[in-house]
């Protein structure tokens, strides 16, 4: 190097470059990721030395949008936070409104909510199992799993008219009733899919799949508790938690004896996958119980939605449900004038994505896709704003507090 030196010779530092290390950008656009997240992975040959998780590529400002809408418009907005667990979001939001407004939905409505909830869990878990198979390079299992998932989506279409955004919930009840034919179709489908689920469980224990998933991406129980991971990610690491059992909501109160929590101790990718497969079978049991116990009566309130909305006073509350990916928490603060002061959404991916670092360090590059997929990340739910200064290519992440201050004009 015989370049002219800039500055004093004292400023020139000897930089040690370790050429054995390679920093690979894993994302934000990568075939293994269904949504944009950037993992900056440092590797030596195939071994992972360090991981840096960068979020913020798809922030949509939903919480701010909610503050400019009325309560019912927000119901449709929160449904669009996630395409997979749309029903969890609306249930969580509607429960908060019902608690504030003192509205008691009918028994039948609660049971129907729970029915859709469990169907949604099945479709979400099947979706993930398919992706897991795809990431492990097992396309046939991927195709088969999604083939089975179509049955569940057909059920959604029969019951609610929509395959993805079901729009089932409304304040004080649900929007669609089920007919005896639908119940018959549901139980027939349950019979079909049960066989397929057992087959999927068998195939996941195939030797090549096991080689890819066992003892990969291990998250110990202590680390899981420390990072507050939730849902199947926590249950795979031996943390016995489930909102459905611990803080029952909707019809889970009455199904108390039937909710059984699947827990595995190993904490590897296979344990998390196994938890999900067994939860599929648990969901079938729950759905059968729901269809058996389904009470009669109205499904929504007699009063119109507009009148109900006007009745909701200024108050605040916290609502919690067990979404397919784990605990979903809403903080809702109404303003008493049909609108919201504040909506705070804490999706399960926010705590779960932190678990990726301890999982990935020490693994191989080949393990990244399956490990990332095993927490079932939903990035759109978990993002903060990143501001990139194109002049010097500096990126800074604006946290919630700063955003809050900016919006209120330094009020706080």
């Amino acid at each position, binding site marked *: 190097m015989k370049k002219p030196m800039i500055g004093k010779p004292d400023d020139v530092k000897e930089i040690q470059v370790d050429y054995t290390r390679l*920093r690979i950008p894993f994302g934000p656009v990568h075939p293994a990721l269904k949504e944009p997240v950037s993992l900056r992975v440092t590797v030596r*040959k*195939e071994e992972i030395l360090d991981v840096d998780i960068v979020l913020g590529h798809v922030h949509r400002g939903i919480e701010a949008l909610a503050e400019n809408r009325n309560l019912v418009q927000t119901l449709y907005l929160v449904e669009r936070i996630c395409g997979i667990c749309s029903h969890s979001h609306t249930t969580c939001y509607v429960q908060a409104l019902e608690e504030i407004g003192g509205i008691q939905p009918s028994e039948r409505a609660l049971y129907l909510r729970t029915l859709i909830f469990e169907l949604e869990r099945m479709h979400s878990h099947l979706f993930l199992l398919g992706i897991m198979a795809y990431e492990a*390079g097992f*396309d*046939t*299992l991927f195709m088969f799993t999604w083939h089975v998932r179509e049955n569940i989506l057909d059920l959604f279409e029969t019951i609610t008219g929509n395959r993805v955004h079901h729009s089932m919930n409304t304040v004080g009840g649900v929007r669609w009733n089920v007919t005896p034919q639908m119940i018959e179709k549901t139980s027939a489908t349950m019979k079909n899919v049960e066989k397929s689920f057992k087959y999927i469980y068998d195939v996941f224990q195939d030797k*090549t799949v096991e080689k890819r998933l066992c003892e990969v991406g291990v998250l110990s129980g202590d680390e899981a508790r420390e990072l507050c991971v939730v849902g199947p990610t926590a249950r795979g690491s031996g943390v016995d938690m489930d909102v459905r059992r611990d803080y029952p909501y909707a019809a889970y109160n009455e199904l108390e004896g039937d909710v059984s929590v699947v827990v595995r101790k190993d904490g590897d990718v296979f344990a998390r996958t196994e938890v999900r497969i067994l939860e599929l079978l648990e969901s079938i049991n729950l759905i059968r119980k729901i269809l058996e116990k389904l009470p009669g009566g109205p499904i929504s309130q007699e009063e119109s939605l507009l009148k109900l909305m006007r009745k909701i006073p200024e108050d605040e509350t916290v609502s919690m449900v067990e979404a397919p990916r784990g605990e979903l928490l809403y903080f809702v603060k109404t303003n008493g004038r049909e609108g919201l002061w504040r909506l705070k959404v804490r999706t399960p991916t926010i705590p779960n994505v932190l678990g990726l670092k301890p999982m990935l360090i020490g693994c191989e590059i080949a393990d990244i896709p399956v490990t990332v997929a095993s927490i079932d990340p939903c990035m759109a739910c978990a993002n903060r704003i990143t501001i990139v200064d194109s002049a010097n290519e500096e990126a800074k992440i604006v946290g919630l507090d700063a955003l809050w201050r900016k919006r209120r004009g330094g009020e706080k």
Partner: protein
Amino acid sequence: MNTAATLFLAFPAVFIISLLFEGVDRKVHARMQKRIGPPIIQPFYDFIKLFNKERIVPVTASSRIFTAMPLVAAAASILGAAIPLSNIITETSIVGDLILVLYLLAMSSIALMVGGSSSGNPYGAIGFSRKMSMVIAYEVPMLIAIVSLAFNPCHSLTIYDVVWTQIKMRSPLAFSYLSGAVAATAFLLCIPAAAMAVPFDIPEAKTEVVHGILVEYGGPYLALIKLAKATSSFALTFLVVTLFFYTPALFEGYVSLGHGGNLLLCLATALAFMLLTITVPRTVFARLKIGQAFKFYWIIPLMLSVASVVLSVLGL
């Protein structure tokens, strides 16, 4: 037909047959997954479409190597496939052409490797190192399995000599000699890795390293690489048929199939072997990790190929 004209015709024949084979592979793969699958001539559409696309060479790439390597890979594997094919048609061969064919096939993987690493992309670099390990893993058992032919009963590394031995015995080598059967098994086990099919598509695993060595390739370069891959899998399966499973030998002395019949029977056997060694594994297995694949190749196929050499020295 004279030899020169046959050789000249062998190149377009290799092009058409190998792309058709790829089409059949994709169709059968889809049907096994309960999908409809693309039409059998889809690889031709892909080839033409890719050739009409823009040529993009990344700034970080060393452009000469990057653009030359797909051509080298395609040329080497087409030549590698054309030699055994024209041997069957003309019923002659050059002395020691088996070594040439194996070199050409190795050449095609090495060209892909070098081209991928010259792209300047970190995924290309990882793909390069993975491909290097894979080449070491499968080439060694493959070559040793071929070496067993040099002993008993052929005493030759010339393709048509091996075929002639099988015709004289009126039975394919794998059916008549234990050493032949063992060597054929080792060779067949090496085919999925050489053709870069799941579970051994580790160098270009799309969910892990974004197609690894192919990451920066597109347009005509990608078309050539796809052609090289299709041709080399055809070459490998056709080679295994000529060396170990020359099925026309079974009919020798009973019915005369003629030149065309022999060739068609060979192609049909090659297609069957391709479905067995490429399509079925890629349908029923998940992708392995590089360490697991390496271990597999250095335990089972290597042991088998060494055993085949020992057996053929013993005259079995």
